[in-house]
């Protein structure tokens, strides 16, 4: 590691531990195959190919690696969900849709270190028995798509991909598949439908769990870019040694993407759980902007529930005792953030200072979800747009205090009642912002608006439905 030099001004923070981002912003680094191999690349693939596929999966299970795409599901466990009696082809899909607001890590792997991803994918494909894999990459990364295709071509020429890889029985084709600008294509079943050439409407689960009924109704493993890169390091270190990195049940490193009102936003790779939110903001990111105080943090991408700057959380430690934890003292791992009522999600930390109006922030987020709802299922399609319309009004000064309750109940009518987790993703911001900042939000509305806010169509509908209900009960 000592020999690695980084581009001036882009050096990692001393508290970082760079595994996945080892080569990001590295001086003299490029995306060529030769560069990667000269640095010891593809040794882990050789190592994995000398193992049995089940042994590779076992190592990944032992490592405790959890998915970095959002849900934090144990990767090795997911791989074992392929039905044992399966006779259909198995597919591996790398989820490179990176579109959760606040998340910007996969971008740099894809642009700067494509071979690390290809190596991780080849190992994963070998483990799960896939002979064909796809990288579903968001449309807004056109250069990365080209870079990946070149990297794949090179790897095929070098027999790292393609037929009988490195003289073994194992063959693998990797196809770069470009999306076209839709957040929902990050949801794994939406992604699969999109890849199949249909509208990216997520599928109902059950029955369509991808590991059994995925792409073309064949078993399919979907993993995030960062997750797949970790697989390479699990093989390099061995499962148990990898598990020692980070903290218990929260192993390895992860890349935190910090944006918003800090002095030095950016990406930071840290050992999971070995840094607190306060350290991240104050030490690593240089603190809040001068003269500003921390108001709120969205810790895991815009879908995660917001935390208040001055909040204290009561959490239960594994030994059963409960303790108070201030926001700045939260260790950045999967479990503690969950215990605090939010989630580590995709690693996108959005920091909000006291110059920001909460109604404006919520409206911005609601606009995102209203735009990105695929529109397939009723609660999300109607609810997301409705919530946006309400916060639009609040921001324009046309909100009424009852709007806040309406918002909360709309979110409640979405959560848990939709086809895919987008429902929660769009409900949680509204729910958490209201729980944590109700006074400020109510303050942004006015009683006076109640009389003038409604439009004639709405008044007509109200009257009409009341009449219909009355007629209905009479009928």
């Amino acid at each position, binding site marked *: 590691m000592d020999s690695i030099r980084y581009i001036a001004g882009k050096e990692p923070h001393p508290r970082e531990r760079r595994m996945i981002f080892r080569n990001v912003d590295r001086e003299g680094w490029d995306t060529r195959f030769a560069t990667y191999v000269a640095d010891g690349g593809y040794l882990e693939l050789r190592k994995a190919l000398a193992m049995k596929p089940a042994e590779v999966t076992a190592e990944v299970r032992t490592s405790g690696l959890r998915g970095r795409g959002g849900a934090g599901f144990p990767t090795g466990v997911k791989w074992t969900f392929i039905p044992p009696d399966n006779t259909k082809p198995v597919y591996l899909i790398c989820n490179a849709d990176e579109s959760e607001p606040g998340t910007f890590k996969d971008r740099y792997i894809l642009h700067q270190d494509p071979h690390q991803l290809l190596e991780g994918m080849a190992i994963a494909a070998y483990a799960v028995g896939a002979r064909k894999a796809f990288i579903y990459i968001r449309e807004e990364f056109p250069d990365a798509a080209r870079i990946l295709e070149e990297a794949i071509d090179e790897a095929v020429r070098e027999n790292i991909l393609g037929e009988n890889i490195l003289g073994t029985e194992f063959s693998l084709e990797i196809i770069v598949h470009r999306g*076209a600008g839709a957040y929902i294509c990050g949801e794994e079943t939406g992604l699969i439908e999109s890849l199949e050439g249909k509208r990216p409407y997520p599928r109902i689960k059950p029955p369509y769990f991808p590991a059994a009924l995925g792409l073309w109704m064949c078993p399919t493993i979907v993993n995030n870019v960062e997750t797949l890169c970790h697989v390479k390091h699990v093989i390099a270190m061995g499962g148990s040694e990898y598990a020692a990195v980070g903290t218990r049940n929260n192993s390895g490193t992860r890349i935190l993407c910090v944006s918003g009102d800090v002095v030095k936003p950016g990406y930071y790779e840290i050992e999971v759980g070995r840094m607190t939110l306060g350290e991240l903001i104050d030490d690593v990111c240089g603190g809040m902007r001068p003269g500003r105080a921390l108001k709120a943090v969205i810790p895991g991408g815009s879908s995660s529930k917001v935390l208040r700057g001055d909040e204290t959380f009561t959490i239960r430690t594994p030994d059963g005792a409960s303790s108070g934890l201030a926001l700045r003292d939260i260790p950045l791992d999967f479990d503690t953030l969950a215990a605090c009522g939010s989630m580590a999600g995709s690693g996108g930390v959005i920091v909000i200072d006291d110059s920001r109006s909460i109604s404006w922030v919520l409206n911005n987020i609601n606009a995102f979800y209203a735009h990105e709802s695929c529109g397939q299922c009723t609660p999300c399609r109607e609810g997301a747009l409705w919530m946006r319309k309400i916060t639009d009004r609040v921001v324009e000064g046309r909100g009424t205090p009852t709007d806040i309750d309406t918002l909360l109940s709309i979110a409640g009518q979405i959560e848990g009642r939709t086809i895919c987790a987008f429902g929660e993703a769009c409900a949680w911001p509204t729910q958490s912002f209201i729980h944590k900042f109700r006074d400020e939000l109510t303050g942004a509305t006015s009683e006076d608006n109640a009389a003038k806010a409604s439009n004639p169509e709405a008044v007509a509908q109200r009257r009409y439905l009341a009449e219909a209900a009355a007629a209905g009960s009479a009928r």
Partner: protein
Amino acid sequence: MPPNPKPATPLDLPDELRQKIDAIVSRYPESPRAAVLMVLHSLQGRFGYISEDGIRWTAERLGLEPVKVLEVVSFYPGFHQHPVGRLHFRVCRTLSCAMAGSIELMEKLCELKGIDIKAMHGHRNPVLVSDDGEVSVEYAECLAACGFAPVCMVNHDTHEHLTADKAADLLGQYRAKSGETSAAH
């Protein structure tokens, strides 16, 4: 390569593009339908947008009903159904960028090109084109570079820290560049 704003019918596809599309389709022996996004990208790369004819051509090429291609094209903001400007600006509208001033950037771009931003609607009318066809603007959702906000794409390039005060300069740079290429021709 900047998108070509001239409407053209994809029925006169150059051989080279046809071959490229054949190669794309051949990667999906399981189902040609799966090639639809990649084929549409090829067409948009060549023509700058997906025309009616483009939809029909794609449908025919992949053995689909045209409506199944329209379902896809109209879902994704990444596909345009009308020509865009020679310089297509996609300004990130999402939280981190908005906090860093991307809304002001959009306003500035519109001001520089005399575009009436009030005509914009996220779903119904997402793209506004300047009268001279040089510039089109559109809001994008999070472009995954939030730490370096505001973020804006111009055609295929991504620009970070692009605050409103840098808009005029950036436009100038692109003009200079296209000036060079046209001078080289």
